[in-house]
């Protein structure tokens, strides 16, 4: 789960990492009173999940009250890469002389964590990595040992020659690491980490991603979740043990297993159709899961047919068949449903569906073709 800047800054503040004085505001009036509190000049920053907000005009310096009001008015409601700005962070303006980069993330390939620092902060770090990789220091952190003192020292010395500044940076990196492990993060990034004109090191921006797999250890983090319309459905599916992602085609897909679900979408596309969604009903599927799956898929007004593609392993085909019948009983299906059931208890399943309106398919390819045809072609 990716946090917005103001949420990430709460994590930073709790961890003892210095951040500017700032306030979250939702309206022009709130921005004006925040600016009054923080003093002028101040910076207004759009709170969105996508990158590149600066270039899009989502970050503005306000020197006067009039500018606070006109900038806040312009940014609130602005569309940044498809995301509507509903929140603004009003922050004291900081004068700085240097911009650093610092992050901790998981290195999947090396199965460790990695601390990354650069004196070329304030810009897109992937660009720095591509063009001037020697400006980045990467330090691998052993998961059993954790970040060592010599490592924070080495990173700090890479960024500055000044002993006092090195001390501040090393302390911030140690705190960043403690924050990373105690909150089960998969990214903690400061870009830029600046040196102010009075020689203080402070985090101007903050990026935090929480490991979704560890959310069960931090139930209170759910409060940070802000969902877009599509994500509301995805989250609802998740609560039922399903994995759902809406796409834009006409053929709804209900499949067991993520890999087979992707392969099913690919096959529909290959045969000239467009999948309406990704939907993995998971392993040990109870009939109830099918009810939820049918409900989710049919709520998409673009769907013209449904393809149920099940390869039974732990999933029992007769469970799927009973679920389908129940769904049809609860709410008469107006859409054609093509069903392919192979594997555990398939004979029983085929008997259950015999003589019903469900359209049987002999294999995956046959099912995909029939579902596209039922949807009225591509």
């Amino acid at each position: 789960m990716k946090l917005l800047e103001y949420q990430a800054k709460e994590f930073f503040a709790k961890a003892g990492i210095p951040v500017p004085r700032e306030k979250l505001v939702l309206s022009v009036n709130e921005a004006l009173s925040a600016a009054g509190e923080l003093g002028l000049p101040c910076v207004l920053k759009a709170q969105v999940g996508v990158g590149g907000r600066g270039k899009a005009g989502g970050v503005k310096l306000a020197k006067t009250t009039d500018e606070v009001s006109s900038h806040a008015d312009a940014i609130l409601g602005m569309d940044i890469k498809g995301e509507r700005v509903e929140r603004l962070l009003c922050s004291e303006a900081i004068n700085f002389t240097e911009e650093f980069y610092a992050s901790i993330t998981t290195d999947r390939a090396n199965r460790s964590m990695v601390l990354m620092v650069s004196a070329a902060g304030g810009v897109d770090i992937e660009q720095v990595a591509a063009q001037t990789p020697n400006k980045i220091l990467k330090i691998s952190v052993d998961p059993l040992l954790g970040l060592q003192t010599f490592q924070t020292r080495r990173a700090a010395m890479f960024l500055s020659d000044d002993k006092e500044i090195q001390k501040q940076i090393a302390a911030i990196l140690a705190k960043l690491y403690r924050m990373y492990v105690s909150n089960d993060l998969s990214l903690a990034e400061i870009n830029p980490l600046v040196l102010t004109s009075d020689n203080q090191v402070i985090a101007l921006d903050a990026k935090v991603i929480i490991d979704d797999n560890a959310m069960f250890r931090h139930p209170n983090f759910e409060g940070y979740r802000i969902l877009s319309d599509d994500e509301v459905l995805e989250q609802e599916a998740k609560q039922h043990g399903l994995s759902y992602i809406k796409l834009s085609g006409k053929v709804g897909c209900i499949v067991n297993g993520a890999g087979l679900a992707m392969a099913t979408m690919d096959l529909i596309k290959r045969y000239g159709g467009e999948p309406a969604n990704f939907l993995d009903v998971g392993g040990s599927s109870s009939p109830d899961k099918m009810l939820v799956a049918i409900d989710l898929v049919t709520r998409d007004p673009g769907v013209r047919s449904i393809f149920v593609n099940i390869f039974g392993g732990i999933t029992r085909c007769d469970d799927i068949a009973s679920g389908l019948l129940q769904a049809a009983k609860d709410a008469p299906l107006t859409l054609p449903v093509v069903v392919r059931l192979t594997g555990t208890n398939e004979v029983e399943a085929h008997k259950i569906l015999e003589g019903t309106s469900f359209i049987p398919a002999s294999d995956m390819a046959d099912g995909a073709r029939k579902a596209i045809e039922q949807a009225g072609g591509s």
Partner: protein
Amino acid sequence: MSIFVDNDTRLLVQGITGRDGLFHAMQMRDYGTQVAGGVTPGKGGQTVEGFPIFNSMHEAVAKTDANTSIVFVPVQFASDAIIEAADAGIKLVVCITEGLPVLDMLKAVSYLDKKGTKLIGPNCPGVISPGKSKVGILPGHIFREGNIGVVSRSGTLTYELVSHITNAGMGQSTCVGIGGDPIIGSNFLDVLRLFRDDPQTEAVVLVGEIGGCDEEEAAKFIRQKHSKPAAKFVQQELGKPAVAFIAGRTAPRGKRMGHAGAIISGSSGTAEEKVAALTAAGIPVADEPAQIAQLLKEKLA
């Protein structure tokens, strides 16, 4: 031969008294796997469906001489179970449980490396050497003993492909589902090295999906030439023909497609890149699952 599991596999089921644990313990025993018992802390001393239950892995290993374990315990306790198995001297751990926290897994794989214990998964269907042993939840009846090694990041998609292979009259030496979690024990490369050294395996099927760069690494490995100047023959590192299937050609960017690992981030991890890397390495990629058997036949001809 075969890899990971065979007739010498003696299995303990961690979390055997749970619904899935017990069901699959019986399924594996029915398949012919030597299931020596199971572990559920606090339920030691009981016998369930003929399986002796122990309180700890240490006790279970001491009393049964088991060398392999399979983990069905709930996610909160799963990494602890993996580490306990390694600590008790188990040589291969298969973790079915999915969604283990990344930081826990980093520590677990680091510890297992130190112990010399192999791990398959988490979030995997397990491993089967048809006719010998099954340690996992794969439906046994679709497999047939033979000479094709299968390695996959997926579960049901593997079954789909295997059924095409079996229906075409070919069998499998070993089929390994490596798992869909962000941090997994054995990756494509680890499994390919074992297939390279397994005399029963004459060709390999690689089933990949979007996300990460495991498929690209595998392609490099298969293509890589021996660089020893003294070597008389320039030989492929795998030394055996391979074919592949990649799922997720239609997946949107930035969305996690069920598996935590299956996500296209930025411009990397796309199906196109993986297909291109494999094709460039001389590994034909099937456009749809039904083509896999034909590609294999061509490679083996």
